[in-house]
């Protein structure tokens, strides 16, 4: 009954999430170190979250169009989606930065919080649309080769 075992209780899959999460966190930390915050506004975290949202939208749409969430597709999703992009993007910094910003400038805090939310949703949607378009192109090419 290996099939009945949930993904989160499978050590191999947990390992993929760990590796992806470590690399995603390392990438976020490296970008935060390389780019100084402009006038205290956490633009880097915002850019990371919006970019990660776009990539996750594209990834999950592309994977679901290729078939069910199992085997290699599930391993790719856990390594790059749950792991890398999950570790790359962050919600705790968004919330904490917004509270810290609010003490100095409530307007900037609101811009950070709502701006990330709206841009993130639009980026996710754009990622889904781009992956869907790419998949249709792939389907055309597959048919043309037959």
């Amino acid at each position: 009954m290996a099939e009945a075992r949930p993904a989160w209780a499978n050590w191999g899959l947990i390992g993929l999430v760990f590796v992806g999460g470590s690399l995603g966190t390392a990438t976020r930390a490296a970008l935060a170190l390389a780019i100084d915050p402009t006038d205290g506004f956490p633009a880097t975290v915002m850019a990371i979250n919006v970019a990660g949202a776009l990539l996750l939208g594209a990834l999950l749409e592309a994977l679901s169009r290729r078939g069910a969430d199992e085997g290699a597709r599930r391993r790719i999703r856990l390594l790059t989606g749950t792991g890398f992009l999950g570790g790359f993007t962050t919600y705790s910094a968004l919330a904490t930065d917004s509270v810290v910003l609010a003490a100095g400038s409530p307007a900037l805090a609101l811009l950070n919080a709502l701006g990330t939310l709206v841009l993130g949703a639009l980026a996710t949607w754009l990622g889904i649309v781009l992956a869907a378009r790419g998949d249709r192109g792939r389907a055309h090419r597959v048919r043309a080769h037959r």
Partner: protein
Amino acid sequence: MTPLLFLLTAVAGGVGAVLRFVLDGVIRSRFPTFPIGTLVINVSGSFVLGLVTAVALGGLVPPEALAVLGVGLMGGFTTFSTASFETVRLIGGRRYGAALVTSVGMLIASVLAAALGLWLGSLF
């Protein structure tokens, strides 16, 4: 940041991602219709980051602890991309009330949790 501290931060992020994966899996098996796992993860992670940030600002723990536990563990535990994806998927399924909860609701709850953590941490 020293190379060792950077490595520890990255590893802590991996541990945070695994905690999120397991906790979300457990919650999902109990509540299969609504993505409440990400909500629980992001609100609790925001509280802990607020707490750790305030305690580090007060000098009770060194800034290195903020890097490993905050940027690493809580950064890897909480996630924005999944929250955003769940919102867009709920909007696509015309579940607007649920989408409001996973977007604005999650944001307000996480900001309040972070504020509570920052306040509690400042008492030490």
